[in-house]
């Protein structure tokens, strides 16, 4: 009935299984051995150095034993303000392992990792990739004791609460109502691809990962490609520190995400789907697999999907292995292909040549959920929410210095003040919107609405990708910025100069501020260099890595003025001679 379909089967080359294979080694042995590397190189007919390159790109893969129990403590800024140092101390004391290493008996490995998507439960950690939340010294003692007694990790881990703190009171929720299986798919036969695109166009749905590219345009571009098979990828690599909305959406209604993908496949004529799930959410994998299995049983996935003749579509889950940059769509595709997660150049767009060089649509979890919900409730009902130009609701993860961290489903157009009041923000001072790569908002901007498009307001708006992290006045801005700089320094893919070297250089410069050595020229340098990284970096990571810094310099000028030395006439610079000679002092007889 539809010329859209083409059942060319997507033959995934063996190498696409690389990450899964590496995970199997890592999970069973706690590390990847030399023999494993040799074996994989032989199997895929590639050089060993290429296999090593893939392994070393992902920080959850280890080439040395990482303990029977591998503990990853979140080191993000939210964790830092909720007692990170005490937690580390407790883990070191109880396990006898030091950060970055394994205890002498080889039982516990203690490592740090950036945000694990549990910012509303900090301090939190993953042990063998099972979540442990709201940690304190006592709880850690108990956990480690139980583990030593041989209790399986999955039996004592926590089930992270969803913390859905707010949904629109009168109109009800778009995202957090019970989703009836098949309810969106059942609309497809009458809507046809054109109807789906029309609905998306009417609702102005745009990419909820934070880039806000109009979803209908992306899908239309994929429809226009006549190269089959086509691919649908769900980006569940929610790495932006402070963001956990996709986790909650997947906990709450994975069905809506899956159905959104099926709708997309139907629309663009795709036969293959892939959910790229970040390794930090490994604990969600089995649940999603179960849902997928259920869909297959009900005939909603597989051949003649949803009873639509010749519409064949299935989904596999690819678990990542610890890399923030893989949230960038082209890096994600590279990673799913079993390679290093290096972003591609924009020589081709994914809708032209994406996964395995086939036309590919990559959308965020929330976008797919929204698609299913829109089909489910209809565009009219959807547009009752929000404001003109920005219809619908937005799921926002709120964390940091507030009484009620958690998920807030707000209508577009809600002001920041309303949100801050809802979550019980405590003396907000430095409000990080959309994570470190977003923008910094000050309490002075409280009246600014959170919206997608500014045309309507003709003035400022906050286009929030999914996180609001609140810091109060007792938090030091330099500490926040240093935490972010360290994050980007480690998470850059490493292939373009301005991002690889730039983040490192910015960190060194910020250390001068921390050590009280900075002067006014250093402020100017930070401004210039941030701009340089923004204009010249290869992908979004480098372009946005200094956003928080640039905003801080612009909006918290007073703070920096207090932290720098005024340039004086002497032309002598601050130089800490005592610090510089400290190393030598150890040779005093």
């Amino acid at each position, binding site marked *: 009935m539809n010329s859209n379909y083409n059942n060319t089967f997507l033959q995934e080359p063996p190498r696409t299984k690389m990450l899964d294979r590496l995970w199997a080694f890592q999970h069973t042995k706690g590390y990847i051995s030399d023999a494993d590397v040799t074996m994989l190189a032989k199997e895929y*007919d*590639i*050089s*060993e*150095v*290429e296999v*090593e*390159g893939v392994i*070393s*790109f992902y920080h959850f893969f280890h080439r040395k034993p990482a303990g029977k129990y591998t503990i990853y403590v979140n080191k993000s800024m939210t964790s830092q303000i909720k007692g990170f140092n005490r937690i580390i101390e407790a883990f070191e004391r109880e396990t006898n392992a030091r950060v970055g290493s394994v205890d002498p008996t080889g039982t516990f490995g203690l490592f740090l990792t950036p945000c694990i998507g549990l910012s509303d439960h900090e301090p939190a950690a993953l042990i063998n990739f099972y979540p442990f939340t709201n940690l304190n010294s006592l709880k850690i003692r108990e956990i480690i004791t139980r583990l030593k007694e041989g209790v399986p990790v999955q039996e004592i881990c926590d089930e992270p609460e969803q913390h859905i703190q707010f949904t629109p009171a009168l109109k009800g929720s778009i995202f957090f109502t019970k989703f009836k299986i098949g309810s969106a798919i059942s609309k497809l036969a009458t809507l046809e691809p054109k109807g789906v695109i029309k609905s998306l166009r009417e609702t102005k749905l745009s990419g909820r990962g934070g880039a806000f590219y109009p979803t209908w345009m992306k899908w239309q571009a994929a429809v226009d490609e006549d190269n089959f098979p086509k691919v649908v990828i769900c980006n569940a690599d929610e790495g932006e520190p402070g963001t956990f909305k996709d986790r909650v959406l997947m906990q709450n209604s994975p069905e809506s995400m899956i159905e959104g993908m099926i709708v997309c496949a139907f629309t663009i004529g795709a036969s293959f789907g892939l959910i790229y799930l970040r390794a930090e959410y490994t604990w969600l994998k089995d649940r999603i697999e179960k849902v997928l299995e259920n869909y297959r049983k009900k005939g909603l996935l597989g051949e003649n999907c949803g009873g639509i003749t010749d519409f064949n579509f299935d989904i596999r889950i690819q678990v990542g292995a610890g*890399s923030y*940059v893989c949230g960038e769509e082209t890096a994600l595709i590279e990673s799913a292909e079993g390679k*290093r997660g*290096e972003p*591609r*150049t*924009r*020589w081709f767009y994914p809708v032209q040549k994406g996964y395995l060089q086939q036309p590919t649509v990559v959308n965020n979890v929330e976008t797919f959920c929204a698609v299913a919900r829109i089909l489910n409730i209809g565009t009219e009902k959807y547009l009752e929410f929000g404001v003109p130009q920005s219809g619908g609701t937005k799921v926002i993860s709120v964390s940091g210095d507030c009484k009620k961290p958690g998920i807030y489903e707000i209508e577009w157009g809600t002001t920041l003040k309303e949100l801050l009041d809802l979550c019980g923000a405590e003396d907000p001072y430095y409000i990080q919107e959309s994570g470190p790569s977003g923008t910094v908002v000050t309490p002075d901007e409280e009246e600014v609405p959170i919206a997608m498009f500014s045309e309507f307001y003709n003035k400022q708006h906050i286009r929030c990708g999914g996180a609001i992290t609140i810091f109060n006045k007792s938090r030091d801005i330099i500490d926040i910025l240093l935490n972010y700089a360290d994050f*980007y*320094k*480690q*998470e*850059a*893919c*490493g*292939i*373009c*100069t*301005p991002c*690889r*070297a*730039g*983040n*490192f*250089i910015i960190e*060194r*410069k910020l250390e001068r501020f921390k050590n009280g050595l900075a002067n006014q020229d250093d402020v100017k*340098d930070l401004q210039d*260099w941030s701009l*340089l990284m923004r*204009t*010249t*970096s*290869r992908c979004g990571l480098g372009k946005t890595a200094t956003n928080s810094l640039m905003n801080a310099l612009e909006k918290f000028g007073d703070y920096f003025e207090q932290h720098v030395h005024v340039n004086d006439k*002497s*032309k*002598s*610079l601050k*130089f800490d*001679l005592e*610090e*510089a*000679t*400290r*190393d*030598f*002092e*150890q*040779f*005093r007889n």
Partner: protein
Amino acid sequence: MAKHVNITIDGRNILAKEGRNLVDVAKENGFFIPSLCYFDHIDPPLGTCRTCTCKINGKHGPACTEKVREGMTVEINDNELKDIRKAIVEMMFAEGNHFCPSCEKSGNCDLQHMGYEMGIAISRFPHLFKDRLIDYNAKRMVMEHNRCIKCMRCVVDVKTDDNKQVFSYQNRGNETYVGIDYEQEAKLTHEQAIHAMNICPTGAIMVRGESLGKPFGERKFDQFSTRPDYYDSAVKSNNNKKKPKPKTIATVSLAGCFGCHMSLLDIDTNLLDLVELISFDKSPLTDIKNFTKQCDVGIVEGGCCNEENVETLRAFREKCDLLVAVGECAIWGGLPAMRNTMPLGECLEEAFLNCVTSEPGNTVIPYHEDLPKMLDRVYACNEVVKIDYFIPGCPPDAQHIWKAVRNLLWDENYSVLYSEFKYD
């Protein structure tokens, strides 16, 4: 036949074949676009080094990942863009450990060449001095990770006959380096190995026994600029010399070798002009130990490796109106900064306790109140005081010093020749 399209580069209309790479088109039409990772036969282009950043239809982006298309407007040479490109090359110098005077590739190095063409005397960024290894494990090749700029050329272009990668990126972020596969490396033919060394834009890939060595002056990038507009921006000498006023100069060598002072004496007969017009105050040339008066110009050679260097440099800053950093050591640490990638303790132990000439059981690391304390690393002069002018080189060319001195003393405009601007 391919279609031709009209594009505009810096306001000039150019007819070019549709779909060709913008870097090539710009270069063929006499525009200087620095590029390091780009080379012609890799598709899609790498876009890793970002030194060819320009403005395409009003948006910043690298020229190498652009295909020429109808109506394209490109800006290459406005001041902002020139500065951006310069900054990126400076960033590479700050990120790696590039000790040109001790590098086999010096004179034939693309990175160094870009530095010369853009007149980079000093990197605006702090040198990172990250500890990097040199990998001698491969049979034929040596991987000098200190020099690698991670351009990706070798990763994509050097393959064995059965199409296996010899090089691959390892790690990520600031820990990224290019790893070499020993097994695959052994399978390369001699020609393939030489090709790997040659496509490396720096001296990171070296093939044992294959010397790149040529005498100074005969190396690839020694004599002439390849940049069509090299002298357009430089200021020509002006003839209306002001009446010279006698001036006072002070000089010092901190953590240096006095080579720069030697180079200063290399100005030959010009010295005769100089002696009549200037007097030297504190300087090893006069052996005057302490400043006797305020000086017009201070010439500093060498960086700061101990606390005495810091004090001397501060005194120079106070006593000299203008301060000139002469030579690589003064500018960013130079050869003495080779120790900056390792802890001071290790250096001292190696030098005083474990060296071949030390007598076992009878060695000590010198520490005395009369001895200046060593610093944890070698610091560049501009990390301690502000420096007004930088003259690169190891040692700098005598003519460059002479021109700079004349400018500082008598406001004489000048242009430094390409051949006078070197890092080794």
